[in-house]
């Protein structure tokens, strides 16, 4: 009977949406634990730590720690990603998507570099070094002058060119009405021709 009551209570508690700690599992996260992991940065600057970095200092860090893969000017070495260029190519047949041409927010650069670059040695940069290379990437994309210094205070005033280029997924409005129509089953088109053939063979693709 007691058991039955308990499970009733548990069921009621589970159904209560916003009550914390209903199962009594886990332990409180400590402030320094949260600080160690809570490194994300949002477009409105939320999450940015205090710090600053100049284009000039950024050139040094970038040359030493990034250029081997991304090139001295962010042009990309071999297959490694390029970080500059591509302005006004987004509607082209072969668009070039970079921080300068495509990315909507600078906060993403700061956040991403801090959490995962340099590739293979993540979390090795100091906060100021991240400000420095972020400033330098802005400079490489012709978005600031060479005497610019990026700080927590002026961060949100640096707007990337393609910020307005994004919209919320509009498939429900633009596609689904077209695609939710009865399908043709017989004599759906007058003739069929092969218009293209795939040639990349499995055997050539390796393991």
């Amino acid at each position, binding site marked *: 009977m007691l058991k039955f009551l308990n499970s009733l209570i548990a069921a009621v508690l589970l159904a209560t949406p916003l009550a914390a700690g209903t199962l009594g599992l*886990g332990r409180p996260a400590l402030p320094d*634990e*949260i600080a160690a992991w809570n490194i994300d940065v949002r477009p409105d600057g939320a999450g940015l730590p205090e710090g600053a970095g100049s284009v000039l200092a950024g050139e040094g860090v970038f040359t030493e720690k990034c250029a081997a893969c991304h090139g001295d000017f962010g042009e990309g070495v071999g297959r490694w990603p390029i970080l500059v260029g591509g302005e006004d190519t987004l509607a082209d047949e072969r668009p070039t998507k970079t921080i300068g041409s495509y990315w909507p927010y600078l906060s993403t650069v700061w956040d991403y570099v801090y959490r995962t670059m340099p590739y293979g040695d993540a979390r090795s940069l100091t906060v100021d070094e991240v400000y420095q290379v972020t400033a330098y990437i802005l400079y490489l994309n012709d978005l600031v002058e060479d005497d610019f210094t990026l700080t927590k205070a002026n961060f949100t005033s640096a707007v990337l060119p393609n910020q307005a*280029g994004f*919209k919320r997924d509009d498939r429900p409005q633009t596609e689904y009405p077209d695609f939710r129509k009865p399908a043709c*089953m017989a004599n*759906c088109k007058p003739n069929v021709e092969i218009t293209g053939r*795939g040639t990349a063979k499995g055997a050539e693709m390796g393991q």
Partner: protein
Amino acid sequence: MVDKITRRGFVKAGISASAGLIGTSAVAQGDPKITKVQKWAQELGEGLDTRPYGLPSPHETGVQRRRVPWLTADAYSSINFTPIHDLEGIITPNGVCFERHHAGVPDFDPADHRLMINGLVDQPLVLTMADILRFPRENRVHFLECAANSGMEWRGPQMDGAQFTHGMIHNVMYTGVPLRLILQEAGIKTAGKWVLAEGADASGLSRSIPMEKALDDCLVAFKMNGEALRPENGYPLRLVVPGWEGITWIKWLRRLEIGDQPWHQREETSKYTDLLADGSARRFSWVMDAKSVITSPSPQMPITHGAGQTVISGLAWSGHGTIPRVDVSLDGGVNWYPARMSGPSLNKSLHRFYFDFVWDGKPLLLQSRAHDSTGYVQPTKDVLRQHRGESSTYHNNGIQTWAINEQGEAQNVEVS
């Protein structure tokens, strides 16, 4: 014909072709496999415990994940493909589930794993794996499809094999804790509208998930197909986001942050946004629309038995629900026939379909077309291009065509 297939590495296809011949044509002498006592019918086989963890038969070693080296700069931020052409039913065996990592596969002891819940919560929490195992759990089968699956096909047919055109997908049964219960344990503040899910690997991969989805059907999973998650699939803990693009299913899940706005992380801005013909881009295009593919015959699975009774086998799925119906065309989309659905029809899971027919040995243009439970009908690639152009990389769910020639070989083609 058999020679050619063998040269291309499809030894198995060659074997089944000769077996098929003996089985179907009249023979003058008895088959020695029947008339002679075989070794395996005489001697003892391997004792048990030879392999405490079993592996497929040595005759099945061709069933492998494969990579396309030229797709990425290296093997650490890269992808391989599930051998869907070799598989049947709806469940993907754990060992061949495709992998996509951004900083390799981290190796850690589950005893070292922590899950933190912070942000707009009443009580920020730290959970160990032992804590996770005390939450009520659920079992559900879901497909995981990378948003870039079929992404190489936007500008026309390219990859010659279902594994490579459609293999960034797998379907397993997850055991996990509803994300809702974990968030509620910390207590969601009313301003909390978004969840940032973050991985523990060196890419710190992170995505913003709206609260509505987080409280709906997401799981924090620790088992796949009954056993622990494989390291390459997020061991010891991953997020399951049913019906949504694979990049949101954060592996090696270490943190859930509640916020009032999305974070616009790199994998939801620079990548996994869909560039349209006019230069604008869709973001947060989470749901994987209805899609299907014939897995056999296909370029890696030619018809080797010649004309006669033939099985077409394929997969269909939708991030919006179930697949009540798939149509198959033999003539490039002029005429369509309803396929036979087989196996469980589960929400946001792979579905298996078959079309059994007598092949006359003439060329075919095979297509399949999925209908999902919302009435959405899988579009052609041309119709998709009319809506999106050719640069969107992600979410290509257009109808696939395989051209079958008189020899039964298949090629990836597109038709008018």
